[in-house]
């Protein structure tokens, strides 16, 4: 390989980055389904010819997206103008981790030689299955979650394989939307391919390929350095819990033992609970925890990209076949993110132990509801899937972010939801007091009030962190739980199970979804009293919480701080009693709650 100067390598890196952001912009602007266009549930990437991830959306999902295609269609059989697709989580060994994420891949050639792949996946609105939207808390096997597409060649040398396309589209409840989205995602792949062709034209083949290696080397070196500096040798174990798998009352633990010996790092998930009956199983490719740790530990350097370099810096990831993170076919997978988020928080939990508390507190799992409604007069069938924000964990030097969706995805504007779906949104506010108290406060969740205006409706709910709210760290306390209530404050008030499907609603019902907050960081008694007062004034915490959790006494009339009373109160309160907190403080491994 020729010796390419670092300035040129940086220029190519910048060009690849911008090619990829262009792919994202195209999907963003031309897709049809609310999931993609308003919520931005998509992922774009560039891979080298061996299938190593070079540059991608900063979303720690699996990085082995090309492997299953190369196994089915060897590289030497590929032609310019080919396009491949799949959504089969088992056939791809978790490259795609639930079926609505439809993957498209375009091989890219220079002078007839394959040198890269452009990839894009997007979460499709509906691909069949037992319930509209294809993900149901009621699912007990993957066949209930829609059509499975093994690695398939949908374009050959620029020719569309129309039969396979028709078969697929026929399986959706919303064929027009899905068709539009697939077009946009395929166009993004073609755009990525075109831009990469221009890059290789501009800089030459060898320099471009050298830049791929350079980018991966950079990321590997950055992560090795961070591990070296931040994680002392040792063995650290943490166990985080999911509330349930929706179809049983059982809670599940994700158990991680992180060990570091002489610079060699291992993630062992073998002690994780057995796989679930419900759809929270997660086929965890080994890239996922590596990407999570890599993104977190290299966050200070915006020039480091998430790519296969991270995979080289961490030596092994162990899982146990038949466990929640290595399930056996055909376990259902639709809600795998509930487990994925616990994989992330377990990593934070081990890092907190390794760094004396210098890690973020846990964040809550994002929330979704699936409202299917039917309008008798028009015969119209509507599906409203909304993703709702939660509170994020507080950080070692800043509050947790309020009201965000875990993977950087947008909400629906109220005006959009009402014009599009048979609903009326009657409130959208911060969930006061949901952020875990701390020196740095956990982020707050939100409250969304949804009025059913169709004649008939059912609702599926995905709200987690009710039984196990997001834990606090280094003296910070856990976030406070959300809940789902129908017709609150009326004689007809009733609570719905937070993880459930096919709850029947009638016209006029008001559904209040309240989401959980993030954990706090550091002792709440050390939060400056002015910040506590401001949080009260701006609606993040109540007067009661200021007094009971933070020990800050505010004058009832003026709202000003009663300094003497606050100092006295704080002096009399017990401080933090352990590294972690969930309901009570604990240091090592937390016991599961007894089943109710």
């Amino acid at each position: 390989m020729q010796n390419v100067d670092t300035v040129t390598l940086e220029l190519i890196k910048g060009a690849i980055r911008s090619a990829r952001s262009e792919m994202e912009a195209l999907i963003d602007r031309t897709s049809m389904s609310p999931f993609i266009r308003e919520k931005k549930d998509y992922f774009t990437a560039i891979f080298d010819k061996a299938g190593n991830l070079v540059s991608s959306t900063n979303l720690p999902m699996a990085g082995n997206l090309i492997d299953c295609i190369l196994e089915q269609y060897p590289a030497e059989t590929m032609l310019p103008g080919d396009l491949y697709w799949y959504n089969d989580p088992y056939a791809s060994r978790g490259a795609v981790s639930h079926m609505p994420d439809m993957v498209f891949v375009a091989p890219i050639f220079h002078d007839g030689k394959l040198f890269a792949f452009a990839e894009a996946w997007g979460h499709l609105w509906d691909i069949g299955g037992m319930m509209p939207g294809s993900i149901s808390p009621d699912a007990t096997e993957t066949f209930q979650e829609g059509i499975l597409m093994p690695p398939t060649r949908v374009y050959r040398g620029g020719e569309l394989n129309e039969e396979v396309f028709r078969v697929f589209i026929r399986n959706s409840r919303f064929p027009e939307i899905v068709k539009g989205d697939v077009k946009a995602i395929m166009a993004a792949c073609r755009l990525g391919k075109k831009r990469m062709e221009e890059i290789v034209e501009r800089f030459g083949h060898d320099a471009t390929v050298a830049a791929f290696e350079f980018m991966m080397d950079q990321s590997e070196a950055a992560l090795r350095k961070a591990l070296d500096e931040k994680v002392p040798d040792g063995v650290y174990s943490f166990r985080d819990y999911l509330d349930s798998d929706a179809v049983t009352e059982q809670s599940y633990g994700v158990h991680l033992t992180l060990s570091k010996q002489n610079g060699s790092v291992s993630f062992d998930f073998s002690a994780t609970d057995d796989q679930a009956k419900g759809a929270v199983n997660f086929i965890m490719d080994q890239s996922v925890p590596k990407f999570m740790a890599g993104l977190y530990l290299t966050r200070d350097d915006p020039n480091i990209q998430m790519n296969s370099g991270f995979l080289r810096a961490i030596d092994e990831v162990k899982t146990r076949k038949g466990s929640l993170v290595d399930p056996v076919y055909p376990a259902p997978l639709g809600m795998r993110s509930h487990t994925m988020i616990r994989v992330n928080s377990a990593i934070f939990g081990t890092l907190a132990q390794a760094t004396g508390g210098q890690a973020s507190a846990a964040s809550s799992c994002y929330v979704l509801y699936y409202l299917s409604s039917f309008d008798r007069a028009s015969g119209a069938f509507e599906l409203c899937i909304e993703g709702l924000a939660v509170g994020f964990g507080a950080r070692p030097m800043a509050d947790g972010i309020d009201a965000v969706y875990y993977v950087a995805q947008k909400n629906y504007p109220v005006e959009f939801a009402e014009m599009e779906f048979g609903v009326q949104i009657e409130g959208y506010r911060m969930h006061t007091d949901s952020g875990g108290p701390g020196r740095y406060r956990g982020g707050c969740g939100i409250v969304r009030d949804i009025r059913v205006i169709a004649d008939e409706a059912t609702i599926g709910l995905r709200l987690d962190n009710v039984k196990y709210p997001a834990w606090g760290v280094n003296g910070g306390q856990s976030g406070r739980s959300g809940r789902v209530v129908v017709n609150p404050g009326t004689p007809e008030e009733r609570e719905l199970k937070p993880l459930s499907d096919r709850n029947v609603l009638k016209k006029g019902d008001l559904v209040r979804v309240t989401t959980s907050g993030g954990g706090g960081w550091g002792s709440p008694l050390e939060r400056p009293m002015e910040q506590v007062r401001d949080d009260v004034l701006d609606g993040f915490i109540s007067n009661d919480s200021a007094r009971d959790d933070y020990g800050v006494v505010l004058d009832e009339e003026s709202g000003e701080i009663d300094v003497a009373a606050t100092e006295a109160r704080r002096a009399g309160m017990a401080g933090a009693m352990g590294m972690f907190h969930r309901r009570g403080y604990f240091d090592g491994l937390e016991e599961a709650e007894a089943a109710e």
Partner: protein
Amino acid sequence: MTEIGVDIGGTFTDVVCRRAGAPLQIVKIPSTRADPSVAVLRSVKHMVETWGVDPAEIARFVHGTTVATNAVIERKGARIGLLTTEGFKDVLEIGRQMRQAMYDLVLEPETPVFLAPGRFRKEVPERLDAEGKVLVPLDQAAVVAAVRDLVEDGVEAVAVCFLFSFLNPRHEQRARDLIEENFPDLMVSLSCEVDPAFREYERTAVTAFDAYVKPVIDRYLERLEGGIAEAGVSAPLQVMMSRGGAAASSIVRQRPVRLFLSGPAAGVVGGRMVGKAAGTEDVITVDVGGTSCDIALIAAGKPMIRQEGRIEGFPVRVPMVDVNAIGAGGGSIAWLDGAGGLKVGPQSAGSEPGPACYGAGGEAATVTDASVVLGYLNPDYFAGGALRLDADAARAVIEREIATPLGLTVEAAALGIHRVVNAQMAEGIRLVSIRQGLDPRLFTLLPLGGAGPVHATALARELGIRRIVVPRFPGVLSAAGLLAAQVEHEVSSAFPRPLAGLDLAAVRGVLDDLDRQCAALMAHESGGLSDPRVLHFADVCYIGQSYHLEVPLDLAADDPLRALYRDFQVAHDRIYGHSTDAPAQIVNLRSVHQAGGSDRLEDGAYRANGEAVMPGMRRILLSEQTEPVEPAVFDRAALPAGHRLTGPAIVEQADTTTVIEPGWSATVTEAGDLIVERGDA
């Protein structure tokens, strides 16, 4: 007739005076940051005393301002309150529940909460449905009570944003009436007027920004109007708006959120004018200043307009010229990242201390220092000789900061800095051209600002552009653009209707109403504006899409709606690379009225003076692959019209230096502009 353009920049306030039959007069007056109007009034004094301008003869006085932008950047806008529909006071805070970087430990909020923190947001009972029908009538007593609380907490202005007000403005209008009756000193911004379009967060944000800058802009323009009137100027003050048109100060004070790109918009209009004079309507302007580079594109004589801009990363949904600002300018600092990668910007040494070669204590290696090392800048004739550059300091800082750590020669390090910054600018140009489906090779590059012409041929080479026009006054083109600007008024209305089966009469009805509103605004303008040009547009998308494209709508066409659909498909295919026969819909309708404006900068012919060829050759380095070359050096002011020169050459003038690489040649036009073309053109 005498016309004045005054553009306020960070360092200088540029003044341009155009008089019939006379050469253009230009002066730069130091800006007065604390009160920018002071510099404007000083410039009036300068015109009168130095140029002998009779204030009474001034027919037009156009102003470009950064006051609105600075109020946001420095967080010095007014304390405002926000009134929302009951249940929705946190819309401004929650935004779109987005975060760009999920692992960053310290992140600023991605919503402009600073405009109105929770305690300054109040809810009032009222509600419209998705068709604009009243579900809950406005609780008028609640409006008065909420605003009373806000006034007691010291707010100067109130933003009102109710759900679905873009479909039915009556509740917001009634709220304003109540506020005006009860609190006559309070300023009010209504979302149904600032931005009548769906998506409540974006509408709330832009309305809150409007209220936030309104008291600041109002006081500023009032003082300025009074000041120039006192100086004897009878022409009404006009102000440049972000979309590239000027409007009477009295109207601008009502819609201040349209001022964020006042200055850059003037530069784009100036670029269009210079392009036209040089015989082209397709121009890419690259304005390289000290800290940033503003890139804009003009296609077929029309600047690209975007319907949603950003300020400080926050969405501002009002039309503005599509200026892509990147943090790369002459003062941008070169640095090495953790992995040893060479980066340039966005940190800048600014003007104080400035680049190391300024000799004012600058310790960082900047792009300007690299330009000195490479021989592009003449240390003895920078800014017309006003500032002597310290070439040794430039070499030393690049050696210390970049060359030694990377194991490179000083020259190679300086070339690396130029390659990186040029690549950033080229990427910025690709963004406004290729990403819009436009081939940059078909455009003329127009470098502006002090540093633009230094980088122009290198940029053109990288992008395959064959023609460059260096304007005669690249440093004051924004001020000149003010003189070229048309008076413009634009009003839009939400019109969410499918195209299929749409009744043209309904479209006409809405546009007639918008035309009446534009005409009423135009009636506020003085100065004998005859027959405004009337343009109509529709924002169109495929049904189901989130983003729309603005498409011209010609009501005189055979079948205007069919033509609209066809033009939309063509635009969609051009920009996104695919289109379908799927049904489309209109999102908004828009009417734009324009009047006045000019294409010529001055009446007097350009005359050269002095000795064209400067004494003293120097060596410049253009690439690592080639040896240093010895260019001829010319004085721009002395090059007569028709003069032709070939690269390698350097053309120096008081406000910039043009580097002409081998393989390029240049010609001076009758207007005094310099056209640089590829030799084999």
